[in-house]
């Protein structure tokens, strides 16, 4: 099956480098293009090395670029973490506290920073971070046409689309595939007999549209409307009521509330495309919310991805039988 994340040598790395203090930014700007163009994540943590996770393997940032030797790696201190946080938030943590409570920070261009550390809680609810001890800068690239190899299997005999769930472990490319599927549905693809669709996206984490301060970093097509940073159960209902969608799309279905909202939407005759974390049917059905969707045959097609031959390897397209 097709590998979905081809390398892009024209990737602009500079906004990411700009997040770091000078002593890390300089060697980062010197890493070879072959590593930069394949980069998926930059991981930093308190008293830990700056780690580059690329399709070609893991590297550390050294004083002169990148290395495979941990002894040569630059390490991160609390000041460096504070500087990255300051740059990533434009010194406005308070303005991004909702996203931070969810454990991430949005960046321009659709990139994301995942956060870990000690959190403040009140009655079981997360109020925010007391200390941030690690960050994972996840690099996002808009890729066009990566859904084409599987698109034919998602189209019904009558030309309409099956409700589809893309299933993969973290980092396997499911958001990238879902984003391309949304864009393709919105534009339509005449050579496959796919007409343009009105697509509405419930983008709870802002990853699908690459939302940043109200602007969207990715082209999701001319017929796509996005409800950003809103819980899925609300966003799906609002979109269904107000925007007249033909296709609803959402990322990372997992909570029972999400499953209920998805079932509700599909019951209204709308095609739903979504993604979920799991690596096989057994794992999928072990999660209560997803098991309910599986048992109810909500999705007509389930696409399993893996990182077996690099992130985005399509392993299997499973038929969900009687789905909408």
């Amino acid at each position, binding site marked *: 099956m097709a590998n979905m994340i081809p390398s892009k040598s024209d990737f602009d790395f500079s906004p990411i480098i700009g997040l770091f203090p000078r002593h890390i930014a300089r060697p980062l700007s010197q890493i070879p293009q072959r590593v930069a163009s394949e980069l998926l994540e930059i991981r930093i943590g308190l008293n830990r090395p700056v780690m580059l996770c690329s399709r070609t393997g893991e590297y550390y940032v050294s004083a002169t670029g990148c290395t495979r030797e941990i002894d040569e790696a630059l390490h991160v201190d609390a000041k460096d973490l504070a500087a990255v946080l*300051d740059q990533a938030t434009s010194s406005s943590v308070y303005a991004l506290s909702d996203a931070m409570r969810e454990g991430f920070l949005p960046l321009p261009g659709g990139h994301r920073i995942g956060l870990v550390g000690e959190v403040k809680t009140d009655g079981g609810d997360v109020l925010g971070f007391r200390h941030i001890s690690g960050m994972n800068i996840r690099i996002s690239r808009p890729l066009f046409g990566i859904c084409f190899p599987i698109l034919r299997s998602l189209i019904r005999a009558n030309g309409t689309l099956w409700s589809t769930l893309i299933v993969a472990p973290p980092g396997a490319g499911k958001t990238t595939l879902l984003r391309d599927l949304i864009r393709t549905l919105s534009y339509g693809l005449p050579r496959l007999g796919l007409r343009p669709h009105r697509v509405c996206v419930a983008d709870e984490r802002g990853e699908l549209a690459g939302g940043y301060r109200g602007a969207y970093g990715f082209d999701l097509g001319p017929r796509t409307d996005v409800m950003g940073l809103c819980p899925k159960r609300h966003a799906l209902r609002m979109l269904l009521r107000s925007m007249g969608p033909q296709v609803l799309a959402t990322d990372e279905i997992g909570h029972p509330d999400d499953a209920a909202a998805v079932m509700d939407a599909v019951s209204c005759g709308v095609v739903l495309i979504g993604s979920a974390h799991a690596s096989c049917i057994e794992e999928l059905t072990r999660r209560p919310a997803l098991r309910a969707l599986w048992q109810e045959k909500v999705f007509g097609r389930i696409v399993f991805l893996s990182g077996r031959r690099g992130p985005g390897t399509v392993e299997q397209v499973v038929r969900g039988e009687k789905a909408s």
Partner: protein
Amino acid sequence: MKPVGALLLITAFALVGHVYAAKKERRVRQLTAIVAGLHRLESEIVFGRTMLSTAFWRVARQSGDAAWLFSAAAQRSEAGYTAAESWEHAVGLWSARSDLEAGDCEPLLRLTDVIGLTEAQDQARFFQLVRAELNAILDQARDKLPAITRVYRALGVGGGLIAAILLY
């Protein structure tokens, strides 16, 4: 010519006294403007969730005698400096340029390490603390202002008279 010279001398001394008195009056106006500006900044942060550099600009436009402080912070912030660097730099320049006295800017500097870097409710607490300290300084300055300006003006005229008597 002597009476004219004496009159000029007294006028010059009176002007010096007046300048010092005016400086004290400007200090009170600037402190008032800073307190009001901080209140606006707190509102932008806590209620508006406005990004810090934009908030600085908005406050600068409405802050009269303290506009320079907030616009300097905004410029620095937009140039890519951290909030701490921007604020510290702006307060440093402002304290040298304004009519504030040593110690007036200390509460402002206490915001340096926290401005923008915590959640809204925490920011509100920091701002309230700093405003309370500045209000205490302002109240004291206001209370003393009539007496101090009278003294400076009287000293100016009196000093001029004594100098005229001694010289002529």
